[in-house]
């Protein structure tokens, strides 16, 4: 393994593949993009988890009012239609 990331370019007119190490600027941009992507992924996962928790809490409240799970599922299905 090499420490410097490699970019591969395949020239379709010749079929020749060329490998070259990334420049310092490309590596810096890549590192910044990686950090942003991981932050975005975490934010999305957190939002998904919050939404699921909210849904579960709402479901529990409805069942406490006497609705069955079948009632709740029917309501959700109608709301999505």
């Amino acid at each position: 393994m090499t420490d410097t990331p490699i970019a591969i370019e395949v020239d379709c007119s010749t079929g020749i593949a060329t490998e070259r190490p990334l420049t310092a600027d490309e590596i810096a941009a890549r590192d910044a993009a990686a950090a942003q992507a991981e932050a975005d992924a975490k934010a999305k996962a957190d939002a998904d988890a919050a939404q699921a928790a909210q849904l579960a809490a709402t479901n529990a409240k409805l069942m406490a009012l006497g609705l069955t799970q079948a009632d709740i599922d029917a309501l959700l299905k109608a709301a999505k239609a």
Partner: protein
Amino acid sequence: MANTYALIASNIVGSGGASSVTFSSISQTYTDLVVKVSSRTARSTGSAADQIAIAFNGSNTYTAKILNSGSPFGTPQSYSSSSLALETDSANNTANTFNSGEIYITNYTSTNNKSYSTDSVAENNSGSGDYLVALSLMAGSATLTSGITSITLTSTTSNNFVQYSSFYLYGIKNS
């Protein structure tokens, strides 16, 4: 209706890995293009799979609508993105598993926006963890005013494609 698939070029990543794979100098003699992908990245952060972004002619100025199953709660999600293209296996997935993905680009020589679609699945056989199986279907539009002459694929988390990741570019003619 496609009646010919011609292999234009291919690449299988070597032992050093690769941060990106580019097909350049693409001939303008076909009607559509198809890229077949079997890939895995070195991403080990978190517990999820990884994604691949596409750039046409060095630019990723496109919009995309995505249907993605990649939720730990099993609920399909639909959302817009300007970067995501394909789900791919990562180092978080089961060892030695690779994704299956396809990018289909219609009328790639057109001077108008280019419509394209992708479908992909990242395999994971472990019994726990986030994003056990990541599946996505995507429709996108690339805002280009010239034909596509190059396609670059990179990990959205900037991780390397690992050895044996493979990429095949096909040209399709409609007659």
